[in-house]
């Protein structure tokens, strides 16, 4: 049943726009978190990592594990464990990412189709590992009290706290990635390797290590995204496959290789989806958004902001 604005009073419409605007921003931060890690891996290195969703799930499972350990052995820390758990998610996902790069990805840089297949296989292996270790049913960590409930600026407006948390997290992460990439030595090395591998090697940059580090960073960010999602929904062995399509959508639409493109693309897609979901219904909203993306990509196949130099 489509919404007709004329049925509501002015104050109600104001509340609608505020809450709907927030829902759109919330979705934007979710998409941004997911896409940031992939933008680095796919955008910077040209590696199609189909296991990216599983790295997110890995981060989520790490939070779950921390939650179990805290409630079993350290119940006094129930309030603080969550922030620590996010750090754990980042580190574990990054280390596993570095391992995967060393074991598999580094042999496949010049073979994109093989990377596709290899990372697809990796995602299946990871999904089964989750299934065997954590069980086939979905799990949720016990969220700390301060994360539940909502702010109530007025009677009609409810702003969920976990939505704000995810937004702040994605803001901090984006800022952190930007500062790292553009203001630090290692970031400089990363950008140099992407732009001109041979010259970078000649100048003394250890391109092998830089590649490993970049991949690990992308996976670590995916882990943090997964950790953030435990506040929104439950985690199961195949949760990763639910996120991967939207993630690639955002990165390709924004133009691979460009952080600004990723940010604008996630914002655009999130707002389009929220608004169309509000005025149409459920699945129809998603259909409308996807049709819009298809049309735009047909007119501009390289995405909104393609980078001028690629590996």
């Amino acid at each position: 049943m489509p919404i007709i604005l004329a049925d509501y009073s002015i104050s109600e419409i104001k509340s609608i726009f505020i809450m709907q605007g927030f829902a759109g921003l919330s979705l934007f931060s979710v998409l941004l978190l997911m896409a940031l890690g992939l933008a680095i891996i796919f955008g910077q290195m040209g590696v199609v990592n189909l296991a990216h969703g599983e790295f997110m799930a890995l981060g989520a499972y790490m939070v779950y594990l921390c939650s179990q350990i805290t409630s079993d052995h350290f119940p006094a820390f129930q309030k603080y464990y969550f922030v620590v758990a996010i750090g754990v998610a980042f580190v574990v996902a990054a280390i596993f990412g570095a391992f995967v790069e060393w074991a598999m990805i580094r042999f496949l840089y010049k073979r994109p189709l093989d990377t596709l297949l290899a990372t697809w296989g990796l995602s299946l292996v990871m999904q089964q590992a989750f299934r065997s270790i954590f069980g086939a049913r979905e799990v949720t960590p016990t969220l700390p009290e301060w994360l539940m409930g909502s702010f109530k600026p007025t009677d009609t407006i409810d702003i969920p706290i976990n939505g704000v948390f995810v937004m702040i997290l994605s803001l901090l992460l984006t800022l952190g990635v930007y500062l790292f990439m553009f203001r630090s030595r290692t970031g400089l090395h990363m950008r140099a390797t992407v732009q001109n591998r041979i010259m970078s090697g000649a100048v003394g940059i250890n391109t092998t290590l830089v590649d490993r580090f970049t991949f690990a960073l992308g996976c670590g960010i995916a882990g943090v995204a997964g950790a953030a999602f435990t506040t929104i929904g439950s985690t199961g062995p195949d949760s990763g496959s639910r996120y991967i399509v939207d993630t690639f959508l955002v990165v390709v639409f924004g133009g691979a290789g460009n952080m600004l493109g990723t940010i604008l693309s996630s914002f655009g897609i999130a707002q389009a989806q929220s608004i169309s979901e509000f005025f149409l219904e459920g699945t129809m909203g998603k259909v409308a958004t996807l049709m819009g993306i298809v049309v735009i990509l047909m007119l501009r196949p390289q995405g909104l902001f393609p980078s001028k130099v690629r590996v």
Partner: protein
Amino acid sequence: MKPHSIHQPTQRRKILGLILAGALVTHPILAADYPTAKVNTTGLAVTDTTVTVGQLHSATGTMAISETGSIEAEQLAIDQINAAGGVLGRQIKVIKEDGASDWPTFAEKAKKLLVNDKVASVMGCWTSASRKAVLPIFEKENGLLYYPTFYEGLEQSKNVFYEGQEATQQILAGLDWIAKEKKAKTFYLIGSDYIWPRTSNKIARKHIENVLKGTVVGEEYYALGQTQFGSLINKIKLKKPDVIYAIIVGGSNVSFYKQLKAAGITADKQTLLTISVTEDEALGIGGENLVGFYSAMKYFQSLQNPTNETFVKAFKAKYGEKSVIGDVTQAAYEGPWLWKLACEKACSFDVDKVVAASPGIELDAPEGGVKIHQNHHLWSKLRIGQWGADGQAKVLYESGLIEPNPFPKGYQ
């Protein structure tokens, strides 16, 4: 008694007769009494000591949260039957297949179980989509399916026994209760996007508009696996319905109820009635996100009767103290028992004979007494439970035995 003598055959016959009677009393059903050639004339997987059945549920995927309970309950029933001597003196062997929450996979595995493995019956499926996917195969291969989930009705097949309630038993009685209890006039219908929620809401809408004289202020569907319900919740806040009628299925339940609570929609401000949340889903959602909401089911783990208490104890002993038992899990538990009773009444495993022997069979189940109807559904009661923070429901209302009516007039 006269002294033993080889010239007194009647004497020996009497003694032999006593021994045989004694043997029969202590071994009521011997496989030898039911020779394979007589109980299996259709080439099923039956030997002198075993009979093979199939199990087809989603052990993986978004539906695993709901279907794992059914898998466990069916296994418990089969173990109990085997411990008591099996069916027609034969031990039940189970071939387990994983539908993986993917309907074409269900169809493929069903074919394998019926055509390759020639199982005598299949305990399987959960969503209506999976049942619809396998139905043509069961009808073509003349298989036997015991289907545990409450569903939308509008179906009746010679090859399926429906252990769960159909729409008139579950939906109509539930809506009647909530309309009376809460004086509800406006309803917001939501559901996951596939056949069961859509058909159920269609039936619910007809009942609300024609019988209860209420209004449906919104009706929306979201894909299975959806986790973002922000827009929907905002719309609900706008419309302020008397009752939210929710049929969200599988893992999405977790996101939906968490986001509902985060948005400040709690039971003291908003009434919510669902027909898709059982103790299994409550375990994943977290009781604290469900407090005060209502579910309409035929069974709740908290039911007080001796059969249920024994069943809950046995289930927890096998699967752990923290296990929970939902409506579908209990219905799945009834499947192997109903099949056993039918096979014994028919003295055969042949599907046609088992089907013919089934109507009228009664079972003392944890939910109470149930009876198989001519239309292959069960007579059962409807209960309304209110969720508590511990993930268990308090039963507030219990109806009488409702006759199953999968093709109600005026609702199609």
